[in-house]
Structures are given as structure tokens and as C-alpha cells.
């Protein structure tokens, strides 16, 4: 079976500024992968390409055996790509449950009229969606937040809601953009546990952008390193930790002799 996600020579340029340059990488099924790299390395742009927010200037993105080049951007979710955003992108005037329900959007069918009447299929559908959401709420342990308006929640709670919303899309691949930034030790460990559970219990592959090297090293199966839009390394966490080019990219060539310090770079 082919890889779940296969990026082949993707390039994205904004008016001459090349944010992602000829990047190829893959995510296997059942894998937790990380993308790391200094600020401005093009990580988020790469995510935007994978989730259809942006289109590559050249190169191909193949997901689950399908070339996504012709897929309209709002169909990416239906194909099984869910994501969270670096700077929270929740529907902040809606409640937690409503946010999660939006995640279910692609698995529902009812239109304006059916919704207005709210009877028969539309109602059954809503009940089914609500059951699924309840399951996610329990999984993420946010029961007490259910009816809270998202805008009133703490940053860490909002992050968790956003994770739940991405899960509600029933993705095959989950893209997590700096999930634990700004979280304390305990919250970070919770998230790490969730990510592993997501993979193990739901069979969802995970690709995450992370600056927190601890979590990257602890839970990734594979790590991809971007630098100035280019991929400079790929491998198991341990290999990456020893890689001289990676250390040079992060810390400058002078410190390249102490690759071990990479893991502490973001403490």
C-alpha cells in the first residue's frame, strides 16, 4: 500500500518570494510525523498546501492515492484531511459543541430547507452527529466546557477544542500546527497522550509542526526538517538529533559540534 500522504517536489512562491521550495515528503499510515525548522522555514505554508488553503506553484500532492491538484479546497476535509491552526482559528462566538459540530460538516447532508423544517432525516442526522461529538468531548475530557462560548475559554482549552473540531472531521490525516506552544508541562503531556491515543485508537495518522523538541523527540516516528523553504533532513528523531546540518540550521554553524543540544533548543 502506498503512503497516505505523498508530497512530490512542492513549491510555493508569493510574488517571487519562495516560501516552500521543491519539498518532497511522505507520511505513512499509522505514523506520527513532525515537521520542524526555524521560524520562517515554510512549515505553515507547507501545511496550507496540504490542507488546500493554498495551491502549490508547482509539484504534486497525492493523498490516499489521489492527486489533490484538482480537488477544490473545501473538499480536502471530505477526503480525510483535518487540521488545527497555529493561531487559533475557532468560531469564537459559537459554543464548544457547535464548533465540534461544524467539524462534522462533511459527514452530514441536510440543506437549507431540510434544516429549516428539522424533521425526519435532518433530525436523525443531527442526533447522530451529536453522538459523535459527545464521544470526542469525552475523549478530550472537556465535558464541562460543552456549552461554553469558545471565545471565553483559556488558550489551552481552545487548543483542545480545536483538536476536537479537527477530529470531528473524521480525518485520515491530522495536521497539527504548533499544538503545544504556550502550554505548560502538564497540558503538553496531555496533548502528547491524546496524539498517541488518536493514532492508536482511531488509526489516524498525524503530521505536526512543533517547536517543542521534547514532544517531537518523544512521540514522532519520523521527523522532517525544513530550512528556508527547503527540506534539509529526514529521519527518526534520534538520527535528526545527531544531524549536523540540522543543528547548523537551528543554531548556526559554530555550535554544530554539539548536536545534542538541539533537543534543548526550545526549552
Amino acid at each position: 500500500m502506498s503512503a497516505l500522504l505523498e508530497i512530490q517536489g512542492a513549491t510555493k512562491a508569493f510574488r517571487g518570494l519562495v516560501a516552500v521550495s521543491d519539498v518532497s515528503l511522505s507520511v505513512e499510515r499509522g505514523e506520527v510525523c513532525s515537521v520542524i525548522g526555524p521560524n520562517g522555514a515554510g512549515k505553515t505554508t507547507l501545511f496550507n498546501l496540504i490542507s488546500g488553503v493554498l495551491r502549490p506553484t508547482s509539484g504534486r500532492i497525492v493523498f490516499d492515492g489521489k492527486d489533490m491538484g484538482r480537488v477544490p479546497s473545501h473538499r480536502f476535509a471530505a477526503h480525510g484531511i483535518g487540521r488545527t491552526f497555529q493561531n487559533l482559528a475557532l468560531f469564537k462566538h459559537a459554543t464548544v459543541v457547535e464548533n465540534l459540530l461544524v467539524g462534522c460538516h462533511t459527514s452530514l447532508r441536510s440543506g437549507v430547507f431540510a434544516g429549516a423544517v428539522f424533521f425526519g432525516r435532518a433530525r436523525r442526522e443531527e442526533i447522530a452527529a451529536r453522538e459523535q461529538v459527545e464521544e470526542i468531548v469525552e475523549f478530550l475530557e472537556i465535558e464541562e466546557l460543552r456549552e461554553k462560548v469558545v471565545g471565553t475559554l483559556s488558550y489551552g482549552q481552545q487548543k483542545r477544542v480545536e483538536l476536537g473540531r479537527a477530529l470531528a472531521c473524521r480525518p485520515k490525516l491530522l495536521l497539527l500546527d504548533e499544538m503545544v506552544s504556550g502550554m505548560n508541562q502538564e497540558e503538553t503531556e496531555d496533548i502528547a497522550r491524546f496524539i498517541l491515543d488518536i493514532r492508536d485508537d482511531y488509526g489516524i495518522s498525524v503530521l505536526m509542526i512543533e517547536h517543542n523538541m521534547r514532544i517531537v523527540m518523544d512521540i514522532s516516528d519520523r521527523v522532517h526538517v525544513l530550512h528556508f523553504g527547503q527540506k534539509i533532513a529526514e529521519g527518526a528523531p534520534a538520527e535528526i538529533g545527531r544531524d549536523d546540518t540540522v543543528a547548523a540550521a537551528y543554531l548556526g554553524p559554530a555550535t554544530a559540534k554539539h548536536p545534542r543540544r538541539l533537543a534543548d533548543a526550545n526549552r
Partner: protein
Amino acid sequence: MRSGHYKESVPSLIVLSDSTAVWVWGGILVLAMAMAPYFLNAYLLSFLVLILITGTGALGLHVLTGCTGLISLGHVGFLLLGAYAYAVPVAKFGAPPLIGFLSAGVVPALVSIVVGVPSLRLKGLYLAITTLAFAFIISHVVLSMSWLTNGARGLPVMRPELLGIDFESDARFAHLCLVVAVATLFAVLNIQRSRVGRAFVAVRDNDIAARTMGINLQAYKLRAFMTSAFISGIAGALFGIYLSFVSVEGFPFLMSIEALAILIVGGLGSTAGVVLGTVLIVLLPEVARIALGMLGPQAEMLFSTAAHELRTVLYGLVIILFLRFEPRGLVGVWRDVKRLWVNWPLRH
């Protein structure tokens, strides 16, 4: 208010309201409105009718501006279209009123695609101004198609007979408006708790995230436009019947502002707010009249000679004061009062 309650089944989680009190009071209110025509005189009844019609129209705008966040300054265009879409087949070609109401919804909804498609790429103020431009163009087109619309002469409209019921009398007409308003209210509430309504809110709050969740922005903006135009068109038809005369003059630009004022005063994005806002805005001139009457005959005289001006100044002031001091609108005030009532004398 009850505290600490448990739901035993998932279906009970998706009901419109799980509070018996809300249903009981809602029922009493509707019943009272249904009985009102037998107790009120024609003048007071006309306020009830205006509240019901205005509320329906405001709910239409609410779908577009409140839920989906697309600001429209051209709402009056849809009202006007609805009125004509009713009047032309019914008054000019003798079609049954039911067909008239259908066309009053469908025609504006179709035209809203023409308005909506070019608007899809536009955001915020640019969109607002485009809708304004469309409202002007719609009235121009209606005026210039005089072979169909009678142009500036306008079309006289009779009270309809629907499903064998004659709505000729004021009381019956009020009932018709009540049925339409309540049905619209339920439809809008239902839309809001279903897939489409959540998609509207998602488009409003964060369009990029919405797209990532699988929401086709263009399609949902258009759907919001169409739903809004449909509802507004029906309200426009009712208003035309109320005026007994459909003409471009009967739908001044100020109606667009009035509709936005209702949303703001009620609390943008809240359906309950639309209801509260409608009541306040429609009754504002009468309240002002009574308030001025308290100040003595001199002030009351001023109101009778400068009523229109004072009324518009009041609109403006009320809008500014709400935006400045209570951006959550009447709904926010209502929640505060409720919290105070439940928790008194405690603070929280």
C-alpha cells in the same frame, strides 16, 4: 433558572429549548397575539401587524448579516422585489395569492444569486456598498419595466384569500402575519441548529477555518443570500399587502437602515435579539410620543409637527447608544437582568 440538570438522551440535547418555562411563555405570547386582534383597535392592531411583518423581514437580514456576517445595505431591495413578485402575478394577472407568496420568496431568492455571485469575492465594506448599489439598480429596473410593474404608477393590492380563508379583515390579516412570523422564526431557529446554520456562523467567524472544515464558502454565502432574500421577499409581500399598494416609493432606503438598526439594537447574531429589536424599533416612535406627552402639551405639539424628524433622530441616537454602551444589544441586557433575578442577592 434551573441549575445542574442532566440530559438522559442525545435527542434531548438538540431540542430548541429544554426549558418548559420558555415553551410555556412562548405559547402564551403567541396565544395573546392571536387573541389581540379581537381586543385591539385598528391603530394598535396596526402596530402588532407592523411588528410581525418587520420582524419577519429583519429575520431575513439576520440570516445574512447576523449569522453569516455579510453586511447588506440593500436589504430594502429584496423587500421591494418580494412585494412586486407578489403583486405582479396576483394583482396584474389574477394568479392565486398562494402562487403570489411563492413567487414573493422565489423571485428575490433568484435575483439574490445575481447580487450574490459578484459579491462573493468582496468583503466587508466593499460588499456593503455593492448591495447598496444593487438596491438602487433594482428599484430602477422595477421602475423601467413598466409593462410588467406598472412603473411609477404602482400596483394596488387586495387582501388575499388563502386556502379558502379570507384575510380581508384586519384581524384575519394579523393572523396571517402571525403565522408567517412564527413559522419564519422557527425556520430560522432550526436552520441555526442544523448543518447549514453552523456553516453560516463558521463562514462569519473564520472563513479559512470554515473552508478547512469542508465548507464551500461560495456556496454557503450564496445560500445565505438566497435564504435571506426568500424570507425578506415574503415580508415584502406582506408589507405590500399591508400598504394595499406596491410602489417603489413605499420602500424607502431608510428601511435598510431600520433593519440593520433592529439587528444591532437586539444584539447582532442573536435570533431572540431580532425579536426584541423589532419590538423596540417599531414602537420607538409611539414610546417617544407618549414620553413627550409627559413633558406637556408644548412638547407633544412639537412631536406632531416634527414627528418624522424626531423619530429619525431617535433611531440614530438609539443605534449609537447601543453600539457604544451595549454592543450585545437588548439580548445582553436581558441576560444580565435574568442573571440578576436568579442570583439576587448574590453577585454571581
